[in-house]
């Protein structure tokens, strides 16, 4: 299985870490944030990296999943898994309805429309306080349990989120190497040529938009249960921008690029905390510098360098 060797290595590392370091803050606390961010970045990369459709509002679907779980379990006493499913169904419906008109747009217009969607949803979280608890949010979600086992510790959450994260990465890798993935890349490369190859471009874009929103919604539900709390802050315009940054930082179109981008951006605040007020400044500077000098992204640039080096050695040995 050469195709999945990178994935297997990655999965092994992720699953062994908490066994070696069960009480390490960076593994079992920061690790959870990293996993959520990886899931979101990988799902956004399906849309942005594969299909080439920018979205500045991905946090909206993440937030809708989280709020659906919080509201349905606390206010309506629904079973957490049913609430997650209901949230997912709502997000799928909403994203499907919006996908056609939104994805007809290109470039800056698409950026504007997705940004607008993200901001409207965020304002709704803040303003509809009867339902969402307003700026204070909602706390006290019921414990999620799986096959009778309550997920009530950081280590248990580690394995739950890690499994979903690995599943997302696997799905993303599988899609890249398939008819569906090639159709997305074709849309990215030339929409007119894609159409001439018989690809219903509007449908393909709409499907990946919905799929990516669905992944984010489930991540949101899990996040709400894990944090035991939801508030509008977690789903703001800035978080959408951060997600885009993760994808671009690692390298658009590469699943592991998204993974690495999410990883770096998740631990950055932990590292930058010593700089206190400089955090925002440094974050902005990194974003600019990477985009100006390594527009293909850290991971992809590195991968290309290694590939070129290996090719050079092969040439040399001939």
């Amino acid at each position, binding site marked *: 299985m050469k195709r999945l060797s990178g994935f297997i290595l990655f999965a092994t590392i992720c699953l062994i870490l908490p066994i070696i370091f069960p009480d390490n803050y960076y593994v079992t606390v920061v690790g959870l944030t990293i996993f959520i961010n990886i899931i979101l970045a990988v799902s956004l990369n399906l849309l942005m990296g594969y299909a080439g459709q920018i979205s500045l509002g991905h946090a909206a679907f993440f937030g809708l999943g989280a709020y659906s779980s919080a509201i349905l379990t606390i206010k309506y006493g629904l079973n957490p898994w049913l609430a997650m499913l209901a949230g997912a169904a709502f997000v799928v419906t909403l994203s499907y309805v919006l996908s056609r008109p939104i994805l007809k747009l290109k470039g800056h217009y698409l950026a504007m429309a997705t940004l607008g969607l993200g901001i409207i949803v965020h304002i709704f979280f803040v303003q509809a306080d009867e339902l969402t608890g307003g700026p204070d949010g909602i706390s006290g979600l019921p414990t999620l349990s799986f096959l009778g086992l309550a997920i009530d510790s950081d280590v248990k959450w580690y394995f739950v989120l890690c499994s979903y994260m690995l599943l997302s990465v696997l799905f993303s890798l599988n899609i890249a190497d398939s*008819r569906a993935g*090639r159709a997305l890349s*074709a849309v990215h490369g030339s929409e007119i*040529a*894609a159409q*001439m*190859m*018989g690809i*219903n471009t509007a449908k393909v874009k709409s499907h*990946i938009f919905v799929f990516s929103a669905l992944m984010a919604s489930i991540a949101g539900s899990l996040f709400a249960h894990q944090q035991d709390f939801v508030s509008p802050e977690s789903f703001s315009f800035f978080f959408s921008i951060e997600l885009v940054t993760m994808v671009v930082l690692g390298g658009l179109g590469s699943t592991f690029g998204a993974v690495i981008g999410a990883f770096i951006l998740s631990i950055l605040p932990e590292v930058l905390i010593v700089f206190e007020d400089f955090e925002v400044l440094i974050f902005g500077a990194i974003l600019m510098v990477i985009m100006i000098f390594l527009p293909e992204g850290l991971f992809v640039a590195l991968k290309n360098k290694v590939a070129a080096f290996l090719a050079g050695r092969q040439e040399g040995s001939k």
Partner: protein
Amino acid sequence: MALLEVKNLEKRFGGLKAISDLSFSVPEKMVFSIIGPNGAGKTTLFNLLTNIYTPSSGSIFFKGQEITNLPPFKIARLGISRTFQNLQVFLNMNVIENVMVGCHLRSKSGLIASALRLPSVIAEEKNVKQMAFEALEFCGLSDYADRPAGGLPYGILKKLEVARSLASKPELLLMDEPAAGLNDTETAELCQLIKRICDSGITVLLVEHNMSLVMEISQTVLVLNYGKLLAEGTPEEIQRNPEVIAAYLGEG
């Protein structure tokens, strides 16, 4: 019955008539060429046939079915494919993947099945790769299969577009200036390729400026001038037609 039939086709851009009252029909299994001076409306005609532009009036039939207002992907599904004058290769993919996109219509795995990589997907994937490789071989590109399309020379990219179209097993292939920018050797290769495409049972509709190529491989030639049909006939008839000569020499 003709494979492709165009009736009273017209396209206006603002006040300008790019194509006016054009009718012709293309029989099966032949090379049918469209020539004309620059700005005669040849590429516009291709864009109308594939509904990248919507005709202002008139109608287009393929195998007796009206396709005038079908979206391009549905036209492709009926068996029409095309190459582009300004290349539309997927530069973000490698060569074999480009051609595998051409197999889109001959395979069917959806997004969910692909994400789960069901056994049917694995089997189909193998099959698609095989079909794509055959198309590459047909066009003499098998050595390039794993190269990224991005860095390849122009001549190779032109062939790649042909391979990609052939992979969809079309009945009608529209080729928009395939020889433009090619050197003499490449043009000679292209000539052989077009002949082999036609021999394999595919009808070729060709827009081309290279007259010797057109005269060598076409059974019928249609001349467009200012969006209107100037003449239609065998290569010999066209070469002898005084109106055509005048149009090309810029008289009148």
